[in-house]
Each structure stands twice: as C-alpha cells, then as structure tokens.
C-alpha cells in the first residue's frame, strides 16, 4: 500500500487535532436527559435505617482538571473523617462513595446519576468547572437530589437542588474592583482564557467600569491552555493601564506571568489581580514570577481564625506538612459541614426537608461564619484581596468589612441590570 504525499501529510494533522480535542477542556455537553433516563422525580432510595448513611463525592481524579479537583477531594475526605470521628450526622456514620468525573462534563452527569440512583446517596459533593456543574444540574433536578458545589463561578444560576458554597461574582469580582477603585486605579486591562467564566466576568467588569468611571483599555482572550503570550503582553504593556485583571485559567498563568515579567512589568509598575491563582497554583506558576501580585478570594491559608488554624493543622497532619489549603478546598470542607447542619436542623435526610431547613443555617468556617441564603442556595462570604508573599502563601491586604450576601444575579446593583439579558 502506498499513501500519497498529501494524504500522508494530512493524517497527522487530523490526528493532532484529535489529541487537542481529547486532552483540551473543550468538551461538549451531551443531552443531559440521557443521563437520567430512569428519573422518577423524587422517589428517593436513600437508606437511613442502618448505622450509616451514604454520601457521594464527585471529582475529576483523572484528566486535565485532576490537578485542581484532587485537592478538593482531599479536603472533602478530611471533613468526612472529622464528622465521623465526632459521631457522624444524626448518629450515623458517613459512608463515602467516590466517583471520578474524569474532567468530562458528560462523565460528571453520568456518574452523578449513578450516585443518586444506584448508590442512593443522601447528598453529593463536588464538581469544579462550570460545564461540569451545568451538565449535572438537570440530573439533580430530575431526580430531586442535592449537589454541593464548592468553586467560585460566574453566577447567574440558582437551582433548588444545588448549594453553591464558592463565591458568586459579587463576592469575588466586584469586591476586587471595589478594592482597585479604592486604590485609585483609573484604567484596567482584562486578560482571560477564552471560555464562559472569563467572558461573563469581563462583561460584569465592563459594566462596573462604565458605571464607576474606570477605563477598560483592552480585553484579550487566550485559547485555553495557550502558552504564547508575547502579543497579549505587548498590548498590555503598550496600554499603560494602572492594573491588569486576570481571569486566565490553569497553566496559561505560568506562561502569562513569565512573559509579563520578561518585558519588565512588575507588581509595582502594573499589578495583576488574579481570580484563579490560589496557594496550590503558586509553585507551578513560579514564586519569583508572581511574588507581590494580587489575588481575589474569600479564604487564604494565612487567615487568623481559630477554625482555620484547626483546619490547616488537621489537613497538614493528614496529607503532609508541605501541602497547602486554598479557597475551593475550604469551600468544599465547609460544604460537608453545612449539609450536616442542615440535616440536623431538618431532623431528616430527606431532600425536601433539608431544602426547607437550609435557609439561615450557618457554620463557623475557616473563612469566618458563613450562612446559607434560603432564597438562592448560595452562602454569605467575606471577600478578601491577598498579596502573594515570599513563601508562596497569600496574605490578606484588604477584606470586606462584613460578610457579603450572595447575589448571583446582581439584582441589587443598578449598573448590572442589563447583564442578565
């Protein structure tokens, strides 16, 4: 057999495209209905007769998101262990069933269906990317089950079957802009990865800037996973903006910060506020590249609260002294305790009773007291701006005077009225 030069030349291209499709984050969401074919609308099979009750953890333990989601899995495991050691939930030990979402939204939907229907778990914890959450949402709604989602996200969602324990936009992005405005920032440059979260976040930032007299000098997106930032960095440098708002995701941060530094831009000359670099990501990005730069989260390992000291000590004791704790890990840890508090308040593991009891439930979390908002199933959080210090940890340089009520649709902000449309 002979393959012609043309065909031979095109084979690797097709194959290479296949590689990117397989390994990249550009997964599609298939028809979610297929994942809940046996949906029976709330006839729960949760067995609470014995001395234990099943809960499900769903995280990507493999694939591109495994880097981040493994840490969430670890802190969920820690919370379950602590709760069991303290007597369990309403006297029942938690029996954890873990499923691998494998960084694919369709897998998340399928595995979530299994956790609900076959394993009969009382509640499910996990998910990271918005696409994984969006894929699981119809499964949880159709089966009337509970998902606790621990990661900051782009807002504009409120399902009665999902509890959102990470920050929504008014608990992370808007406070970060408030901070910049307070520091006298007149102009900003937006850099983000090309997918839903940065695009939504930047829409909000544009609206905020327009209403607050801040000038947006540029809005640039890099393809997910991109490592080539020469052009973007040139544009940023040329804009002479007061600050950069960074919504890049994952490894792109490494390339961006390295190249940012190499054209002579520094935290002093043009600070970068990042919303996806936490303690866990700093070593990979390279401390020397991000030292002194700003981050926007609700939790840092360095927080000086009794609950946090206990959390950090317990985590290091279980997983090793070199491990660090980050915002999504804390939100995941908190989510399990919040569910426990809801169940105990309801006096039942039944979903509708837990939902009815959820409003007003609070927990002394490592980040401070958090309270569930019964209207939108989000929680109050205290936004904090941090600065990356010389040890790679993040120190709080500014914190909101009080916990901020969640407002996923930004209904209480005049300038944001048109955003939801």
């Amino acid at each position: 057999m002979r393959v012609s030069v043309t065909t031979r030349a095109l084979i690797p291209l097709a194959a290479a495209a296949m590689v990117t499709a397989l390994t990249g984050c550009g997964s599609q969401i298939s028809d979610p209905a297929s994942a809940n074919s046996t949906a029976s609308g709330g006839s729960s099979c949760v067995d609470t007769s014995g001395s234990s009750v099943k809960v499900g953890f769903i995280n990507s333990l493999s694939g591109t998101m495994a880097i981040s989601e493994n840490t969430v899995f670890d802190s969920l495991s820690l919370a379950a262990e602590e709760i069991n050691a303290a007597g369990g939930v309403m006297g029942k030990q938690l029996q954890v069933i873990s499923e691998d979402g494998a960084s694919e939204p369709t897998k998340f939907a399928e595995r979530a269906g299994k956790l609900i229907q076959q394993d009969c778990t009382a509640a499910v914890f996990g998910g990271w990317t918005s696409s994984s959450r969006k894929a699981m949402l119809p499964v949880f709604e159709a089966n009337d089950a509970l998902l606790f989602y621990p990661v900051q996200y782009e807002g504009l969602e409120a399902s009665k079957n999902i509890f959102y324990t990470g920050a929504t936009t008014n608990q992370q992005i808007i406070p970060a802009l408030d901070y910049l405005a307070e520091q006298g920032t007149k102009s900003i440059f937006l850099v983000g990865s090309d997918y839903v979260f940065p695009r939504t976040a930047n829409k909000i930032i544009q609206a905020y800037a327009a209403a607050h007299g801040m000038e947006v000098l540029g809005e640039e997106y890099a393809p997910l996973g991109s490592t080539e930032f020469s052009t973007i960095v040139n544009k940023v440098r040329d804009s002479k903006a007061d600050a950069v708002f960074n919504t890049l995701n994952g490894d792109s941060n490494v390339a961006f910060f390295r190249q940012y530094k190499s054209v002579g831009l520094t935290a002093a000359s043009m600070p970068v506020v990042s919303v996806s670099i936490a303690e866990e990501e700093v070593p990979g990005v390279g401390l020397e590249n991000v030292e002194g730069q700003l981050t926007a989260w609700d939790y840092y390992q360095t927080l000086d609260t009794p609950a946090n000291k206990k959390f950090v000590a317990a985590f290091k004791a279980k997983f090793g002294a070199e491990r660090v704790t980050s915002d999504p890990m804390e939100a995941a840890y908190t989510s399990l305790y919040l569910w426990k508090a809801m169940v105990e308040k309801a006096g039942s593991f039944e979903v509708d009773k837990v939902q009815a009891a959820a409003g007003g439930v609070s927990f002394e979390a490592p980040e401070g007291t958090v309270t569930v908002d019964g209207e939108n199933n989000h929680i109050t959080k205290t936004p904090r701006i941090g600065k990356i210090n010389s040890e790679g940890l993040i120190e709080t340089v500014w914190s909101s005077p009080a916990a901020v009520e969640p407002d996923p649709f930004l209904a209480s902000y005049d300038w944001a009225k048109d955003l939801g449309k």
Partner: protein
Amino acid sequence: MELLIGQMFAGLSLGSVLLLAALGLSLTFGQMGVINMAHGEFMMAGAYTAFVVQRSISDAGVSLLVSIPLGFLVGGLLGLVLEAVLLRRMYHRPLDTLLVTFGVAIILQQAARDIFGAPSVDVRAPAWLQGNIELLGAPIPLTRLFILLLSLLCLAGLVLVLKATPLGRRIRAAVLNRDLAETSGISTRRTDQLTFFIGSGLAGVAGVAVTLIGSTGPYLGTNYIVDAFLVVVAGGVGQIKGAVIAAFALGVLQSVFEFSTTASIGKVLILVLIVGFLQLRPQGIFSLKTRSLT
C-alpha cells in the same frame, strides 16, 4: 514604533519556538515518514529533564546549560527505544504508527504524572536570562532571544550534519531512494536509528527551551504537537528549509493576526490560511523530487 518592533520580535520569537518544536519532527516525519504523535511527549521529557537537573544543580544558569545536551540525550534515547521496540516493525504502515505513537504519548503523559505529580513544576530561568534589553525602546525579553539563538544553532547543527557528514549523506540517500541506498551498501537500519535519535533529541532540546517561557507539566507536549505538524506539512514534507520558512512565516503571521484581531481568531485565521495553502500546494512550500517510483 516601539510596539511594532515588539511585535516583530514576538513573531520571530514564536517562529523560533515553532522551529525548535518542528525541527526534530521534520527529520522523523519528513525524512523517515514516521508519524510520531509522541514527539510532543519527548519535548515534555526534555522539559522534565531541565527540572530534574535544576533540583540537583541549584545554579539556574549552569543547570540550563547542562540540561540542553542532557535533554537531547533523554529525548534521543526515548526515541531510540520507541524506534527499536515498536516503530521498526511498522515502517510501511503509517496509520498503525500513528495509533501506536498516540498510545505511547498517553503512556508517557501518565508516567510523568505518576513520577512528578499532576501539578506543573517550576523551572527557574537563570538570573542572566531574566529581564530584557531595549531595542529602540521596545523590550526584547532575554529568554526569547536565547530561544531564538538556540533554535538557529540547532538548525545550523542539523544542516551541518546532513550536508557535511557521512551520516548525513546516508540519511539523504535513504530518503531519496531507500532501495538503491541499501543496494549501495548503506545500512538503512542503522541510519534509521540514528535519524530517529537525532530527531527525538531535538524534541528534548525544544522541551528544555520552552521551560523558559511556559509551564512544565505532563501535558506540555500537546500544546506544541499540532503546531509542529502544521509547520512540517506547510513547509513541505522532508524539507528542512521549508520547515524553517514555514515556522517563521507562521510565527510572524500568527502575531500579526493576533495583534489585529484576538488570540483565538488569530489561531483560526492561521488554520484557514494553511488549509487554503495546502489546497493550492498540497506538497507544501517545497516538494521533494525523487527518482524513486512512489
């Protein structure tokens, strides 16, 4: 003006990265016709070599200079093993090599994750490569300049080997007409091995170089493999000079497109351009003229 020079250099620099990634591929794919999907993973192995060396030699400058030849060796040896164990059994089955090397790529990624952990690791750039020099007011990052020089050096070395050494003559002979070369007493078997060693070794060097600009993680190779194949195919299979022109042309065009539109649209335009170009010239910029009856 300042921006223009900055952008010009960005284009050249991107071109040099593409060239480094594609140079080895233009040997193994171009000259030997082996579709090696694990080429990117050989780059990844080179990058991790730089990381391991830096752990034992704390001086980032020395460790970088040591890593370059060592990265070549690691990449080359991986290539040699792949060639000896798998590829030599399927030289006339390009589709099978594609699948097999794709599998090898996945195995290597998982191996890197098991050995070094899933999160990216940090390879520090030496102090003398941090910062930039000013060219008419435009900052020229030193790391980029270093990569540009390194790629030109690799290119010069490769051309020298191909044109002026007995090995190079044998490689060229085997490419032009394998059967005739064999009849003339050339051991094509050994030539294949050496070609693959050099091609894979260059991937290792490219891997060391890209640790200076991006992240070092198990998926490093997947970022470059598509672009590397694009360069080789657009340049003309088997043509080093084609690969050079294609790499710099793509680099400059990409940064021009990206500057005038956005990064994602720029990428789309490049792909459209290449598809269009290959419609007009399926054989790439240069085509190999051989007397073999293929």
